[in-house]
């Protein structure tokens, strides 16, 4: 019964292809490429061995059955038919006997027979393998573009922390390499150890579900993920971070798996506790600490030097780590190593530049100090000598003039006026002499803790009468948190008094003066701002030089002494002034160490 239709089909076949053609077809029958012959209804007349193998159906199963039904043909890409052309090629999906879907290209050639009917000659090219290849290729391209994106993030990362975060997010994000967890170990050359520094990944399956579903719901770019990443949850380090921090080994401890891996140049894949492709024994503590027996370890090396180790695993999904996963992780590792090294070099460079700058500054300051000290010592010695010599005569002149005024009030008015002038002028000369002697004072500061605000108040109190008479109102502000100065109380007091005296001279018509005490870098600043006549550029440039004065009755030493005191304290003095608006003189002193509170 079964052979009946077969004989019948053969008869029909013979009818279409007489003699030699039939022999040719028989030859095709052994061909490995799937091939079939259809009659004008589309029923299968011929089915070669290649087709039998490809579709998993024997010739007996299919002969006489309709082609479309037999292979479950669904045409996917069909070009328009061109009149007069009997061969058409189109893409389609077919199905095997097992139901497996096949991607194919069908080449169909119509064969008109003498009786007016048309048979068809069908050749099938398997596309499934190349489709697979294509999909694989697409995945590769996607992965490479991820690597490129990670690379861009790494390039723009400003700090080592940001770089580490980018690497870890890249290794684990669904937009990235899709590992479940990733750990970064860095070489600390100073301490001679390799130590776990950072990690990303869920603690367990339930946390994984939570995090991954949340991430899936939001369409973030890799960069956004990096920016949002928080290494700590509610102030506590995440579990993977805790795990990462447990990992450490001395750089010379070759017994440790992580050190051996760091020192070799190739990636090690551990599957079920064994290194793939080597006789490497089961890794030591690392399996215990990570809690998985399958992971990848990529050594990070830059310029031949070990920088760190990147570990990645699929602890939650248990998905096997493929060759492709390893290859792409190695690519990431390459970028990571360079980025980490770059960050380290940048830090190191910045540190060295800063220390060099500081050293240069210190050197220049010392040179300036030296030159100034030499000059001032010479000036000071001479001035002190002169001052000392005229001091006693001044006391005598002024003293007797006062004495005359007091003893005999009955002088002629003209005589009284003359005596008063002598008293006044002597007072002025005495203040100059006092400044000169103060200036040449050789004492080094006796450093204590100085409350600048209190000192300013006392200075104002001392000059109270003169300030009132000049119509000057002084206000004192202190910015909270201003530190105590490490300074010689008396000397700083002298400096503040001198600057205030300068205000007196700069404000002949009175007005407000404000003293501000505020934190400045590692110290405290006392800035005295007057609303007086101000200084020209010329005057500003010379204001701190000895004996430079624009005043009729000044010694030209007040600001010089203030500046000398400030510099003796390793502080700095700044003058800012606008003519007609006023002058601000800011003195900065180093801060005293915090007192220990009991």
């Amino acid at each position, binding site marked *: 019964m079964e052979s009946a239709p077969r004989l019948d089909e053969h008869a029909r076949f013979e009818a279409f292809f007489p003699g030699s053609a039939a022999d040719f077809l028989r030859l095709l029958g052994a061909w490995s490429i799937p091939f079939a012959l259809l009659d004008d209804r589309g029923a299968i007349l011929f089915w070669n061995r290649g087709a039998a193998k490809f579709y998993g159906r024997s010739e007996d199963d299919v002969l006489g059955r309709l082609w479309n039904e037999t292979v479950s043909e669904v045409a996917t890409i069909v070009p328009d038919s061109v009149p007069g052309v009997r061969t058409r090629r189109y893409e389609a999906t077919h199905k095997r006997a097992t139901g497996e879907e096949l991607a194919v290209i069908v080449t169909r050639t119509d064969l008109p027979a003498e009786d007016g009917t048309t048979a068809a000659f069908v050749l099938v090219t398997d596309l499934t393998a190349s489709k697979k290849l294509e999909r694989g290729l697409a995945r590769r391209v996607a992965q490479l573009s991820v690597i490129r994106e990670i690379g861009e993030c790494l390039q723009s990362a400003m700090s080592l922390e940001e770089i580490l975060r980018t690497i870890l997010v890249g290794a684990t994000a669904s937009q990235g390499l899709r590992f479940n967890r990733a750990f970064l170990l860095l070489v600390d050359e100073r301490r001679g150890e390799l130590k776990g520094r950072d990690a990303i990944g869920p603690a367990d399956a339930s946390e994984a579900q939570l995090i991954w579903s949340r991430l899936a719901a939001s369409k973030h770019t890799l960069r956004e993920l990096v920016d949002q990443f928080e290494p700590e949850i509610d102030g506590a380090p995440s579990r993977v971070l805790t795990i990462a921090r447990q990992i450490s080994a001395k750089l010379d401890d070759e017994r440790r798996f992580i050190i051996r891996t760091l020192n070799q140049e190739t990636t090690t894949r551990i599957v079920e506790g064994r290194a793939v492709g080597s006789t490497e024994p089961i890794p030591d503590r690392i399996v215990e600490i990570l809690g998985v027996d399958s992971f990848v370890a990529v050594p990070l090396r830059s310029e031949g030097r070990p920088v760190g180790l990147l570990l990645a695993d699929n602890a939650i999904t248990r998905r096997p780590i493929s060759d492709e996963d390893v290859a792409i992780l190695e690519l990431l590792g390459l970028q990571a190593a360079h980025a980490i090294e770059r960050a380290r070099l940048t830090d190191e460079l910045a540190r060295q530049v800063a220390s060099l700058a500081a050293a240069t500054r210190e050197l220049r300051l010392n040179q300036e100090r030296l030159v100034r000290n030499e000059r001032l010592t010479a000036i000071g010695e001479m001035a002190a000598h002169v001052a*000392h010599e005229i*001091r*006693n*005569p*001044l*006391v*005598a*002149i*002024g*003293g*007797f*003039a*006062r*004495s005359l005024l*007091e*003893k005999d009030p009955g002088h002629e008015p003209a005589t009284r006026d003359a005596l008063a002038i002598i*008293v006044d002028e*002597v*007072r002025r000369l*005495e203040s100059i002499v*006092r400044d000169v*002697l*103060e200036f040449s*004072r050789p*004492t080094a500061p006796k450093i204590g803790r100085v409350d600048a605000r209190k000192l300013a108040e006392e200075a104002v109190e001392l000059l109270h009468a003169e300030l009132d008479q000049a119509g000057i109102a002084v206000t004192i502000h202190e910015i909270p948190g201003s530190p105590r100065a490490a300074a010689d109380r008396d000397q700083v007091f002298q400096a503040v008094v001198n600057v205030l005296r300068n205000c007196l001279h700069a404000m002949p018509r009175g007005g407000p003066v404000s003293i501000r005490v505020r934190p400045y870098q590692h110290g405290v600043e006392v800035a005295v701002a007057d609303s007086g006549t101000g200084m020209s550029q010329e005057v500003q440039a010379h204001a701190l030089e000895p004996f430079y004065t624009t005043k009729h009755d000044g010694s030209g030493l007040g600001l010089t002494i203030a500046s000398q005191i400030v510099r003796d304290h390793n502080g700095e003095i700044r003058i800012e002034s606008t003519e007609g608006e006023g002058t601000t003189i800011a003195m900065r002193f180093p801060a005293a160490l915090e007192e220990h509170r009991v």
Partner: protein
Amino acid sequence: MSKILVIEDEKNLRTLYKQDLERDGFDVVTAATAQEGLEMLESEAPDLVVMDIRLPGMDGLEAMSRVLDRHPRLPVVLNSAYSSYKDSFMSWSADAYVVKSADTGDLRARVKELVTARSGT
């Protein structure tokens, strides 16, 4: 009448201090050197000493320590051109420290204060 001994090497200043202090009602004797001053300390038995720190022959601070050795309760007023001596350890034992000035008001005030305090005890 309280007696003041002024030890001062400058003749004009001796005259000035003597004149001013006498006007304030004190009996004033003067010495030009530390040595002379120490001798007068015995011969005149003053109630208070005003002395310069820089004196020819003997340092004023040393002279003061000799004064205080002999008369530990005698008030001493140091009168100096230099404010820098203010911090000197020795000058702490003086009862007052006055910076020399044409305005003798400060000096006279301290002298009056110390003499009053002494006669009060």
